[in-house]
Structure formats: C-alpha cells, structure tokens
C-alpha cells in the first residue's frame, strides 16, 4: 500500500464527463464555424439568390433616410413624357433680423433628368437666386449663414404622389440658421484638427527618431540620469511663464513633456535590466512592461489616444457627446451614435467570433486527426482569411439581413451587422489562434501527459495559458481590422445619418433597427456638401484611428503581461 493511495481519490467520472463535453463542445464549435464557411462558399459560388430572384441584388436600405430637412422629389406628378402636370413649386421663406423682416419666394422647377442640382444660399444680402432647377430624384440644399432662424411660410406646387405608407413624397421642411463657423471658445474645428495632426507628428518623431541607441546608452549608464530627465521633463511648462497659454501651445508643450518622460522611463528600464534589478513580482510586471521599446510605443499610443480624444473635447465638446443633428448643423453634430454603433457591432461580433474561433482552433490543433476533411477545412479557413470584405457583406445580407432561403431576417440592424463582422473575423482569429497553439513547445504537452493528464486537462491547464498571449494578440488584431471596415456594412445597410442612439438588439425586439458606425459616418460626411462636414469627417477619422490604436495598445499590454508571467 503506497502512502499516496491513502489519500481520497478524485472522482474520475466527472473528469471523463468534462473530457467528453469538452471535446464535443469544441467539435460543435468547429461544426458551427464550418457551416458558416460552407454557406459562405456557396454564396460566393451562387450570389444570385440573395434577393430571392435570379439576377437581382438589392441593397438593404437606401443610404439616407427620408427626413424632415430635405426637400425630396421621389415621385413628382409628371405625365408620360416627363413634364410636370401642374405649376412649379413655390417656396416662401421668411426671416427677421435687426434690419427688419424679409420674405422671399423661390420658384423651383423639377425636370425629368436626374443629377441636376442647384443649391440656394441665404446670406445677409438675401437669397442669391429666385429660380432653381432641380432634377427629379435628387436632393437640394438650402444653406444659411444668417444668424437668425429662417422659416418656410408656404410650399405650393404639384400635389405629391403618396407612397405605399401614405406619406407624401414631398416633405415639408424647416431651415434653421444656427450655423456658425466659430465655436464659443474661439477655435474652429479646422484648428482642432491641426492640433491633432501636430500631436500625431510630434509623437511619431519622439518615438521613432529621438530615442536612438547611443543617447539611450549614455543616459542609462548611471542611475541618476533618468531621475534628472524626469525633473527636466517639467521644463517645457516654463514656456508659459513668458507666453500666453493657447490650446495648440499647450498640447505641443505636453508632447515635449511626455516625450521626456518616455525617455526617462526607457533609460530607467535599461538601467534596471542591465543591473539585474528587475523584480519578479506579478503586481509590478504591468508597470514594468512599459519600460522597453514595445512599452514605449504603448506610451506613445496611449498618449496619442488621450490627446485625440481630449483635444476635441477641450476644443469642441459636441463632437464626442452629440449625435448627428441635421444637415445644416455640422457644429452641433457629433459621432455619438456612430461610436455607439461601432461599440455594439464590435461587441456582438466578438461575442460571436471569439468562442467559436478559439474553440475551432483548439479542436483543429489538439483534437482533430489529420484526415482529408480536416485538411480541406484548413485550406478553406486559410483562403477565407483573404476573401475581400465586400463578399462577407453580401454573405451577411443574404444570411442575417434577408429572410427566406438561409436568411435569418434580422433586417439591416446592428445585430445583423455584428454577426456579419463576426463571420469576417472568424478565419483571422482561427489562424492566429492555431499559430499560437502550434508554437506551444511539445515539451509542455509531453510533461503534462507524462503525469497522467487527459487531453482536455493538458489543453486547459498547460497549452492554453502558454498560447494565451498569441491568441489575445491575434484576436485584437482581427478586431482592429474589422473596426475600420465600411464595405460590408454598406451592403448590410448602415445609415449615414442616425438621429438617435442605436439599439443593439432592436432586431430581436422589433425596435428601431437603424444604426451607423464610424467608418460609414466618415463616408457619409465626406459626401455632404460644405467644408464643415469635411472637417467633421477628418475629425471622425482621427477618432477611428484612436479606437484602433487603443485596441492595439491593449493587445500589447496583454501580450507583454502574459509573456512576462510565463517567462520571467
């Protein structure tokens, strides 16, 4: 009787059950993934079934919703030759300012051609034109640079044909004139973007050019130097003793400060490493993961992130906190609904993609025998990672948006978009996770099997922790790839202008399913007339980069953390 046999024995039944459930679950996830992939391959081979009818592919929604600020002739009453049946439309505009009241009549002629567009300018001198020609099925805009509201007294003209829902196709509209080119604190959005670009440039210079080997070596030779630099980093703020503080100056000085701090951290890190002072403690691993070159990049990114988010905040708060208002109010609009949309789409995508992909990767690497079927699946996955994103968009349209056939009928909603993006991320995550699992040394598996682990225990206790850094990195890189994708969502049906916060599960609860994401918002804003919108698009693109960079930074932190925990 051995001494160890006197100990109570662990129940093997539970373990075997977990083994079965584990491998079964993993196989199931692979099968789910495989089903998606096969349907996708089928879709690529036979795209015409998307709308139920052969040969016709219909996008999920029109790009801009009908709203109360656009005069839109979807269906004016015209005869067979395209001539208007009744008179032109008469638009009466009225406004007051300190010089008195004004009234203007504009005659709008609708002609059958498309793409004819004339816009109306309102300014201090009145209206620039009294006659406008507009093509059928086009939009036209009325701009106002007046400081007072303009109202529409009357619209008269041909009776609009009603659409199926009973609403007239010509909408009444209100023109407001809160358009101002200067913010209350005196800084325009162009200036804000200039600050962002400046900080980006400065950070790049600080990160890539400044810390060259020789400087760092000479600084880190003694323990005092990095402390001196740390104090010295406060020096740029002395600039403000002589000069007035402006936003641009403040951020440039802040950049210098952070650059010097990074240099101090780097030299301290090298000093500690070369003198064997690096402590072996989990709690300060995170802190010390920022003292090598990767960590330096992380600092730069975090800083960039902070400046990107806080500059618009300090310059122009509505950019982050407000929703899209309307076409005439660029400066009181913001990326709020787009940001929520991106957040929810990513959330749903990852919630779906990560478990399935990681499960499939584990099954393929650890469990599946190398049969012809697994080789085929492997080839499918590898090829899918390179499929253009628009194809995934069509797949999402057929499977998640539309009903009938394979369609699940979620409509052009966040839920459908999230699932589409999840499918798009799956092959990337599977490949990255497989690579991470493959790089786990054989000796770890052998040593675990050698003391009597089951396959699931080996995977769970030994392989997964070692593969974790690689999997994390791969997953987050996949996320940052899909966060910037616009093409599939255009097909799935994201809107350009959403006036409300999106509801993530509206597709399941019959709510309002419309949504937008940051890339689509950028696209829609660049398509608007008016340089203010273009500036907004530029600002939104920087916000998008900030989201991506923050994701990459998280990936670096996690990777460094896990790597150090395993290797130190």
């Amino acid at each position, binding site marked *: 009787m*051995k*001494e*160890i*046999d006197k*100990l*109570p*024995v*662990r129940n*093997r039944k539970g373990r075997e059950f977990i083994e079965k459930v584990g491998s079964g679950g993993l196989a199931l996830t692979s099968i789910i993934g495989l089903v998606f992939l096969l349907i996708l391959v089928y879709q690529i081979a036979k795209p015409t079934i998307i709308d139920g009818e052969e040969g016709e592919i219909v996008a999920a929604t029109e790009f801009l919703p009908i709203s109360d600020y656009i005069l839109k002739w979807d269906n004016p009453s015209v005869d067979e030759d395209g001539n208007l049946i009744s008179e032109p439309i008469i638009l009466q505009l009225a406004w007051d300012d300190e010089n008195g009241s004004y009234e203007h009549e504009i005659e709008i002629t609708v002609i059958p051609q498309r793409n004819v567009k004339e816009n109306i300018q309102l300014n201090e001198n009145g209206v620039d034109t009294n006659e406008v020609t507009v093509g059928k099925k086009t939009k036209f805009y009325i701009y106002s640079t007046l400081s007072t509201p303009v109202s529409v007294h009357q619209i008269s003209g041909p009776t609009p044909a009603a659409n199926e829902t009973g609403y007239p196709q010509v909408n009444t509209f209100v023109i407001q004139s809160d358009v101002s080119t200067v913010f209350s604190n005196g800084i325009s959005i162009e200036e804000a973007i200039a600050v962002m670009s400046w900080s980006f440039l400065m950070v790049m210079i600080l990160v890539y050019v400044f810390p060259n080997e020789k400087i760092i070596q000479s600084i880190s030779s003694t323990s005092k130097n990095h402390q001196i630099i740390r104090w010295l980093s406060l020096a740029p703020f002395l600039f403000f003793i002589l000069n007035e503080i402006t936003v641009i100056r403040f951020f440039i000085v802040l950049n210098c400060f952070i650059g010097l701090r990074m240099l101090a951290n780097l030299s301290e890190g090298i000093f500690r490493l070369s003198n064997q002072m690096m402590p*072996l403690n989990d709690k300060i691993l995170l802190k010390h993961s920022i003292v090598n070159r990767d960590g330096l990049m992380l600092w730069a990114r975090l800083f960039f992130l902070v400046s990107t988010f806080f500059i618009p905040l300090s310059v122009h708060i509505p950019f982050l906190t407000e929703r899209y208002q309307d076409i005439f109010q660029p400066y009181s609009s913001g990326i709020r609904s787009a940001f929520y949309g991106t957040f929810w789409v990513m959330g749903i995508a990852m919630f779906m993609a990560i478990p399935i992909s990681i499960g499939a990767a584990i099954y393929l690497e650890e469990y599946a*025998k*190398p049969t012809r079927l697994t080789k085929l699946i492997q080839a499918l996955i590898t090829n899918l990672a390179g499929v253009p994103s628009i194809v995934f968009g069509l797949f999402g349209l057929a499977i998640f948006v539309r009903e009938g056939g394979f369609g699940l009928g979620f409509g052009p909603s966040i839920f459908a978009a999230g699932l589409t993006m999840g499918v798009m991320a799956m092959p990337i995550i599977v490949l990255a996770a497989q690579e991470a699992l493959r790089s786990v*040394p054989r*000796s*770890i*598996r*052998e*040593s*675990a*099997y*050698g*003391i*009597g*682990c*089951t396959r699931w*225990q080996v995977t769970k*206790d*030994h392989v997964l*922790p*070692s593969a974790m850094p690689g999997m994390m990195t791969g997953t987050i890189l996949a996320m940052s790839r899909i966060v910037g994708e616009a093409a599939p969502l255009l097909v799935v049906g994201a809107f350009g202008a959403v006036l409300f916060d999106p509801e993530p599960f509206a597709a399941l609860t019959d709510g309002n399913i419309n949504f937008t994401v940051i890339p689509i918002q950028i696209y829609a804003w660049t398509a608007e007339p008016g340089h203010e919108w273009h500036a907004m698009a530029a600002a939104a693109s920087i916000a998008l980069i900030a989201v991506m960079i923050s994701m990459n930074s998280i990936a670096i932190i996690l990777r460094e953390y896990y790597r150090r925990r*395993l*290797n*130190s």
Partner: protein
Amino acid sequence: MTEENTENDIPPSTRKLDIDGEAEIHIDGLDLWYGTKQALYDVSLPIAKNCVTSLIGPSGCGKSTLLRTINRMNDLIPICRYEGEIVQGETEITAKDADLVSIRKNIGMVFQRPNPFPKSIYDNVAYGVKLHHKPSREQLDSIVEKSLKRAAIWSEVSDRLHDLGTSLSGGQQQRLCIARSIAIEPDVILMDEPCSALDPIATAAIEELILELKKDFTVVIVTHSMSQAARVSDYTGFMYLGRMVEFNKTEKIFSDPDQELTKRYITGRFG
C-alpha cells in the same frame, strides 16, 4: 551492396532475457512503425522490479521509441502504430481500451530536456497530486516536501517554493521534474536521457539520485553515456537498428558481451 550486408549482419532481437527476481513489466514481441518505416523489430524485454535497467545504442536505434511505448507516449504521434504486448502486473498496457491516465500515473516519465511547467515550484509538484487525489492543504504540503526531499532538491528550494519552476538552473529543473514524477508515487520511472542537457556536476547529482530512487521505484533509463549505464544500472539492453541485440546484467555486458556487435559498440570501435 554494403548496406544490405550490414542489414543482414544484424542479429535478430535476442530471446535470452534472464533476470534475477521478479519483473515489473514484460515487453513481448514489440514491432513498431512510424508510417511505413519500421522502428522496432520484435523487441522483447523484462524490466526487473526495483532495479535500474538501462538501454544503450547508437542514435536512432529505437531506445527512446521503446521507452515511450512503455507509457504510451507514442500515442501522441498520429502516424505511429505498433504490434506486440506490454504487460505490467495484470494490466495490459498495449490494450486498445487501456486506461491511459492510470497507466501514466503508474509509469512516470522524465524527459531529455528539463520541462517544468511554467508554474511555481510548489505547483509543479502539487499539480500531479491534485490531478488524481483530493488532498488537504497539510497533506499536500507534506507530499510536496517529501517529494522534493526524495529528489534531493529540497535544501535548494525550500525558501523559494513560490518562485517559477523555470527560474531554476538546468540540473535543478531536472530534479524538479523527477520530484514531480515521484510525487504521484508511480511504480516505474522512465528516464529519456535525463542528463544529456546537463553539466557533469548536475549529472553526478542525478546519477546519485537514481541509485537512491531504485529502493522505491523501478527505473528504466535511456542513455548515450556508456559509463553512466555502467555506473547506475543493474541490467543493460543494447539496441541496434530497432533490434534488442543483447540484454544481460550490466557487469556481464560491459566485461564479456556475447555479441561481437555489442563488444564493438562498448569499446568505441563501431561502424
């Protein structure tokens, strides 16, 4: 032509397998293939209880393969298949429905390169115990201490049990791996060139440890060093190209081998 001649010159696996006392494991007529390449030819071997059996032979002769078949580690290689029988007591190890977990619990293994888990020293030893039993905290502490003492590493690590196992030196790591194996008290410990990655001092420590372990465990060791085999083992098997050319008591093999091939190998006049 010459190659064919050497093939024909190889004596078949020996059936002269006498040991004093009881055998812990019987290997009987084992053939093994990697894909289409045969690696073991009709190998039979008794493994004497509470003795050290060493397997020697040139690289690629199948010693490690034979060793890894004893606790079914070769099952991890998908293209590997085998015929023949390995029996431990009443358990047929090579049976199709054999319980791999209890086989590997009863037959521990120490690998060529030290491979502690990337966990603390304490967890390295405790993990295997917790895998199979439900010990209390105190029981676990005492098992860990006892195992580390038996592996002759306790005095070096007793004050830093919660450091990572991978932070130890190579020789210490290997003794930690031995402690991990003996913590679950197997009947047999298989050692696959345990000293090949270690310096002479660490090697001496491990050899001393093997002689100590012999009292409680049956040890099978694969080694490239003939002097090591002569020092530590009671029985020695000489393998060549997948055949068990000769098996006998170690003194007999190293002083007066039956086969000309064995003689040439141990005197270093090989080839």
